[in-house]
């Protein structure tokens, strides 16, 4: 018991010492309290996810039970099977993947060169350009959906991949440029200068030296573009209207909309899309956050 206490409190002293010394005892109680609070809060924070998991395992006749246990009685994967068989879930995932990959590719390519210009050159309009990038973040999200919708309609691209790619492609551009500029700024100029002395052009130096060195930042920008487009709902709702062309967000909303029959499939689908996103996010969160605070810390 005392061993366990020592383990949890992170103290060096042995259990008996902890209880004898009043200062140590206070410290122990403090850590115990912190752990209790942390455990309770963590539980509240991940409980909805656990619930989806447990609902996705329920057999069809138990969907509406008020059972709160994590693994229900007679747990089955029936919901997963029928999701993959009876709905177009795989097709929705494929649509999302295609649209998202294309937009991320376009977004990162455009951002990588623009950020290089902002990082290495002085030119008239530089400050104005950076301010434009920042202030574009203040435009309400819903505001540009209407004109984009009308443009896509006019171009006859409603309900197509291309319409979605066009609508998404620049939405993460300002933020990507911002992240990449911050990263390029940390690469010493002497590397390029050496390459220039050796006879390559400025563009060659960018292509052969800077881009390979920036792989981490490029992958973060790619991930950011990817998650933004992958999780988008509002534009898709407006542009896509046949269920064959749906992205997974629309598909899940539809499954949950028909609440009574599809609750289990909704839960199964949610699990299938959440787990990879969660893994990628947790893996990359450190860099994403440093990207978010980059501008502010330097300021």
């Amino acid at each position: 018991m005392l061993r366990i206490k020592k383990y949890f409190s992170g103290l060096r002293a042995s259990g008996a010492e902890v209880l004898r010394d009043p200062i140590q005892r206070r410290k122990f109680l403090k850590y115990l309290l912190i752990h209790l609070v942390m455990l309770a809060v963590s539980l509240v924070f991940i409980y909805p996810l656990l619930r989806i998991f447990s609902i996705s395992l329920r057999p069809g006749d138990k969907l509406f039970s008020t059972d709160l246990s994590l693994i229900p009685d007679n747990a089955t994967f029936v919901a997963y099977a029928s999701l993959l068989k009876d709905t177009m879930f795989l097709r929705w995932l494929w649509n999302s993947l295609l649209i998202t990959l294309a937009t991320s590719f376009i977004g990162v390519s455009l951002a990588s060169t623009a950020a290089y210009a902002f990082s290495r050159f002085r030119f008239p309009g530089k400050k104005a350009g950076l301010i434009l990038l920042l202030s574009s973040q203040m435009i309400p999200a819903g505001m540009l959906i209407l004109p984009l919708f009308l443009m896509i309609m006019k171009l006859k691209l409603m309900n197509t991949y291309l319409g979605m790619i066009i609508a998404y492609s620049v939405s993460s551009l300002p933020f990507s440029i911002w992240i990449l500029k911050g990263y390029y700024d940390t690469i010493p100029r002497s590397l390029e200068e050496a390459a220039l002395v050796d006879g390559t052009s400025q563009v060659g130096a960018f292509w052969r030296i800077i881009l390979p060195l920036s792989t981490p930042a490029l992958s973060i920008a790619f991930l950011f573009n990817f998650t933004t487009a992958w999780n988008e709902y509002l534009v898709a709702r407006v542009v896509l209207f046949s269920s064959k062309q749906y992205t997974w967000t629309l598909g899940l909303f539809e499954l949950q909309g028909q609440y009574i029959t599809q609750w289990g499939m909704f839960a199964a689908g949610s699990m299938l899309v959440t787990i990879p996103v969660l893994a990628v996010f947790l893996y990359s969160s450190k860099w994403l956050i440093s990207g978010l605070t980059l501008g502010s810390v330097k300021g």
Partner: protein
Amino acid sequence: MEILKSIYEVAGFIVLIALGVAALEGYFYYHFKCHDRAWFFPVALAAFPAAAVVAAAAILGDYQFRLWFYFLAAEALIAAAFRYAVKGRHTVPYLLLAPAFIGLALLLVYPFVFEVYLSFHDLKLTTIMMWKNTGSLPFVGLRQYFDVFTTSPLSEVTFWALLGRTLVWTFTNVFFHVAGGFALALLLNNAIRFKGIYRTLLVVPWAMPQVVAVLAMRGEFHSQNGFVNIILAKLTEVFPFLVSLGVGPVQWLSDYPLLTCTIINVWLGIPFMMVVILGGLQSISSSYYDAADIDGASYFQKLRFITMPLIKPVLMPAVTLGTVWTFNNINVIYLVTGQAGGTEQADILVSALYKAAFTYNRYSYSAAFAIVVFALLFFISVTYLHGFDAAKEER
């Protein structure tokens, strides 16, 4: 087969974009390199408007003679600008920036300008066919703006009610995000075991796809099957006296939609603030606290006089960002209330804007509405940032 077809479609589009970018770079390269040649103007004025007219005909599907004049005038202006103002300087940075900024101009600036245009005209379900065929719309001046302040964007709720609700919504959410995030970050900043595990568990709401998180929570607020009501019911079973205090299962989605949305959004937003604040806390040097300990400062004194001032430069931008995000948060409210039979008791400005445009099809009205909301948000952000700069000067 269909999969192959979709790959061809998207890959073809990307190739098209690459070709477009190459053409664009060639266009600008010509202007940078040849601006002082004798044949610069004749070649530019002959070649580029023609190419632009062909491209426009390919994209729009019909040939419009008047486009010649627009493109000719535009090209004359651009060519003159390159010969007399730019003069071939800063070639490399401008060529590097061109694709991104043309993209932003087409998909961010142009839609914005188009929104302003729409707000002075009358586009609705009855005039949209006319607009599709002829491209022109009746001009109505400021009437849409007048309507924004006098009529309801949905069926009954007014602009002023929405404004008040939005301010309350933003303030409540940001307050709980910062308070919750701060408390959790302070706890996590202790030298405790399993810190990494706690941190990982606590960012789950932020890391989940928002659509899944909100829809799942919406299900959990269902009156019979949601765990919120199940727990409330169990509580009242165990402690019957709670019933007399008014505690018990409630019809969350129909009776308290805004409260439900707020709870969901607080749950979603705390992790971001926690992570940002934790980063700030970890960057504070421990020597400040050691010095304060020697002076005999209490925990709250240290919090007030060391932590607070030092965390401010990290906190202020995060709060600004959080305010803008919360103000703009259509997702939570639309996903909770947006279906047929959904209530409008929970709508804030931006979700009403979205519904006015796409549920009620009042396009021009919602354009004017959007401009008003943008002006408001711009004003709030500038005030915030101004305060932030002032705080920085002080430091």
